[in-house]
């Protein structure tokens, strides 16, 4: 945005809207277990045995209710892909450069996206075994896992 304000009037705007999201019954249980007990909970479908992380109320394939079949997964997992974030945005969880990875937790069917703290980003590789490091202070979202770190 590079405006010649002499000849054209530009209105400076700002979108900011304080907002309360209901986490849902399933999401709430996941977040409370993660925050208070440092346990990573997933839900498992009875029909096809798929273990869903993030957990959810309903299976998108069978439409069966999943909310009563909780299983614990992780805290270890395997990196299945990653990128090194080098650009800057105000919403980023830490100063770039940092590693954003797909991590399949042991016991879960699909990976989730999370941060990996590995010292030098050049040491990152697919197949790396990692473990969840939990936040010291209570956090009400997935950053209750502060990041993952390599299991040597």
């Amino acid at each position, binding site marked *: 945005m590079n405006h010649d304000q002499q000849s054209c009037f530009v209105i400076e705007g700002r979108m900011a809207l304080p907002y309360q999201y209901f*986490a849902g019954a399933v999401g709430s249980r996941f977040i409370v277990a993660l925050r208070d007990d440092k346990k990573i909970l997933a839900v498992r479908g009875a029909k096809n045995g798929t273990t869903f992380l993030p957990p959810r109320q309903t299976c998108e394939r069978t439409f069966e209710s999943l909310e009563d079949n909780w299983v614990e997964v992780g805290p270890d997992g395997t990196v299945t892909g990653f*990128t090194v974030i080098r650009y800057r945005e105000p*919403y980023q969880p830490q100063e770039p450069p940092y590693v954003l990875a797909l991590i399949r937790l042991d016991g879960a069917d699909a990976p989730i996206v999370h941060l990996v703290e590995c010292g030098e980003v050049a040491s990152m590789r697919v197949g790396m075994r990692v473990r969840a490091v939990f936040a010291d202070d209570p956090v009400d979202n997935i950053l209750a896992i502060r990041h993952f770190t390599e299991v040597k």
Partner: protein
Amino acid sequence: MTSRVAICAVAQTKYEADKWDVRMQGMVWEVVKQVRAQTGLDFGDDGIEAAVTVSDDVFDARTISDSAVTDVVGAHFRGEEKVASDGAQGVYYAVATILSGKHDVVLLAGHCKESQAASRNMVTHLAFDPFFTRPVGLDYLAAAALQADAYMRKTGVTEDQLADVVVRSRQWAAKNPVARDATPLTRDDVLASPMLADPIRESFMYPITDGAVAMILASEERARDITDRPVWVTGLGNCYDSFFLGERDLAGNFALERAAARAYCMAGIKNPVTAFDVVELCDQCAHQMPQWAEGLGLCAAGGGAVWLAEGGPDCHSVNRSGGMLAGNPLMLGGMARVAEAVLQLRGDAGARQAQGAKRALAHGCCGPAGQLQVAVVLEA
């Protein structure tokens, strides 16, 4: 009820980095005026009966942002439907409206001013959920990087090959008067651009762009009255993939294969490798050129690297417009592809014309790493 729908007129603004002195309504009016002039149609029972608009609330910083353009698309005369997705999906809506028998003539208009936001990434960050994916900083750029990483590891597509995709895009863009960025680049120039999110360099990503597109679609009976050169929409298909990136095969084409199969079934196409004289695909990022080519069946699944090495983009006449890589805003990537396909099939593509083109494929996508896929088959 009609059995076929034609696109009877198309208009695009020039795509630009920052149309700071044109309001979004002004961009839409510029293209609506042109398609009305091309067809001589007015609004009302004997002319344009309904409108489909394409826009995004967060890019426009307005709730239900189509309400900002109702006056220029004639929504006060008849109905208006908003598509908050790629404009190729708007083509789908307009065609469905006509095939249903509800209307015979529909105006389709889309706009997006990416330049208005302080950052495009801040807009796309809001597409993610607030508990699981937003806190780790995901946006469409990071999602595209995870996709590119997965795709390049699976297929062996190299950084040099992606650089050549960008070089080629600029060469074609130089022949497209509405293209945003026709600055010639060499492979070395591309590889010198900063790494944003490995393996995506700045020049691998489509640039921040403003613009608008309009079309008029009509039933077969009306199309014959409106134009001597109707372009028939003979196949359409779409499909969504899963919301969470980890639950998709990021290196594959689950949604696009299904969208394409639906479009090809409708158009009676058995072998997409030889079916099209022109292909326009929605490459928001350089790696998506070979990846979407796989999904559309132009080459074998996993064969993108070989397809590039064997000159697939030229063999299949892919993205003579320059493609989305040369600069179209989000929301209009696929709609601009449909517009170019129409120009090619009408013989109006100037220096980039594919001689004698009779059948074209246009592709659109939206959402992180192409969650929604749309395929459109068009015939002269």
